[in-house]
């Protein structure tokens, strides 16, 4: 093994990469291709499915489940905005005023991850319950009518998604804010910027990479989520993930499920590319902002 790396510089890299590349090719790329093939099959659970290159499956699925697609984007988008509104001040506080509590605060933001995602969502079921810790007291003092519900509403679904993905937003924001050199903030003060223009013309533009990363990390899983809609929602608040899950695991309608899955992935990749271009590097360091 001695001096192998000096004699074959490229070979070492490929030896190190080979297991991972092979694994991802076989268990990420091949399944994606296979899913696309399945989406073009026709048949029924009883008779089995044949490869008929049925491209008409795509427009058919889009028109049948348009509402669920729109709902997924709306819920995911709203949850992302809420995560940003909740996460930015939190990240800002930790980055600039965390002091010696910085590590502790970061740990407290990560800690919920060590609890099962399902159990945390079920906890929200307890919190949102019709006579639970929020609605119970409000109903006792007569602020809301007895028939008012949070559980099984879109509000509960969006709140659940927001809760689940808040750390995904907060951590990249923190990382971006933490990197801002204090000298830049001081310089803006020396140049007579008031606190408002310092925030909007220095801090905010420099935080853009974190905002981009955080909103992608939140939006992508939020759009594909079905657990919150299943546990906290109602049949009218179903998202596209619920439909895909039902197609694969209940209806055994693989071509429909595969087409919807493929559409979800394609839509998200397209959104990521457009977003990355809009918030691209040329804007990050603020000629304009």
């Amino acid at each position, binding site marked *: *093994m*001695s*001096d*192998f*790396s000096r004699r074959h510089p*490229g070979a*070492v*890299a490929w030896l*190190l*990469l080979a*297991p*991972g590349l092979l*694994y991802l090719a076989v268990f*990420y790329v091949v*399944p994606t291709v296979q899913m696309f093939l399945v989406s073009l099959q026709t048949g029924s659970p009883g008779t089995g499915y044949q490869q008929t290159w049925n491209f008409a499956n795509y427009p058919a699925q889009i028109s049948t489940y348009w509402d669920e697609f729109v709902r997924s984007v709306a819920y995911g988008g709203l949850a992302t905005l809420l995560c940003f509104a909740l996460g*930015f*001040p939190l990240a800002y*506080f*930790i980055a*600039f*005023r965390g002091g010696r509590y910085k590590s502790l605060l*970061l*740990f407290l*933001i990560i*800690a*919920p*991850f*060590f*609890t*099962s*995602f*399902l*159990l*945390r969502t079920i*906890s929200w079921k307890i919190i949102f*319950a019709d006579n639970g810790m929020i609605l119970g007291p409000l109903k006792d003092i007569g602020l809301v009518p007895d028939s008012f519900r949070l559980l099984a509403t879109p509000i509960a679904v969006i709140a659940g998604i927001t*809760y689940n993905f808040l*750390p*995904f937003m907060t*951590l990249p924001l923190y*990382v971006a804010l933490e990197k801002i050199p204090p000298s830049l903030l001081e310089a803006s003060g020396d140049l007579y910027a008031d*606190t408002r223009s310092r925030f909007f013309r220095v801090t905010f533009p420099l935080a853009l990479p974190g905002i981009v990363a955080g909103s*992608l990390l939140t939006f*992508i*899983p939020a*759009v*594909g*989520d*079905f*657990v919150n809609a299943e546990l906290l929602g109602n049949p009218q608040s179903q998202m596209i993930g619920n439909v*895909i*899950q039902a197609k*694969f*695991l209940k209806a055994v309608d693989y071509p429909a*499920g595969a087409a919807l*899955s493929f559409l*979800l*992935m394609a839509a998200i*990749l397209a959104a*990521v590319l457009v977003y990355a271009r809009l918030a691209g590097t040329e804007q990050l360091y603020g000629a304009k902002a």
Partner: protein
Amino acid sequence: MAVGPMPTPTTGAELSRGTPVQRFRRLVSHWALPVYAFLAVAYLALPVMIMIAFSFNDPTGRANLTWKGFSIDAWLNPLGRPGLPEAVFASLLIATLSTIIATTIGVLMALALVRHSFRGRGLTNLLVFLPMSTPEIVLGTSLLTLFLATAQWTFLPTGVLYPLGMTTILIAHVMFNISFVVVTVRARLLGFPTHLEEAARDLYADDWTTFWKVTFPLILPGVMAAALLAFSLSIDDYVITAFTAGPTTTFPLYIYGAQQRGIPVQVNVIGTIIFLTAVAFVLFTTVMSRRQRTNPADAATIGAKGP
């Protein structure tokens, strides 16, 4: 947006100057952010607290959704439900194996990406990035379509990829964990200089010795963080597992199945044990790495859990 006007805290002396109105406004702007941060952290912790509290519940019916009274029965018999021990064992086994396999594969990839120049770097980065930016449900369904297709592939022995079971869950977990390991270890590797490895080579250490005596000890904290992340992603995964498990039940699948009939209190007990173990482990590794060097960014790396 409650953003404080100053990046530095106001001092006590500044707070007590001026008219009462000015003083009040300064007090509000001084305390708005800390109070907000406290509330936000409490909000994040609330569901965890409820999970722990309800592990001491004494429910009358099957549903553990309303507080009925204090009991430690479930803690005395945490696995005393049919199917629960098997589910917990399956989760622990899959999490352990997928962590070992994904960490090994991922560390090698991260080393290649940071320490070597080669053609195809862009493609490699893309292949690592894609699984993380694909929704979990798509990863699950696409693997399911592959596994189902292999049922007709006569050149594969049955039982490897079909029928579904422990092997297919493990394959899926390794797949989604690789990218997270690469990203975590790569972030760590970017931080430290290469001169120590060059020094080792100058002192006639071969590649193997250099790796185990110099590189590995340096990246060990990053490797530990990646392994912890992989383990916690695996043991908690519901979505991908639901599509690749077949008849096998893991702990998250057990919870999901039970939530329609009413979740037994034991589930909260095991959830609490997993939570406390992870917290203890993180505190332990943080203290250990603090002794070596102080780097608060590590805490962020440990928990940077993606889609």
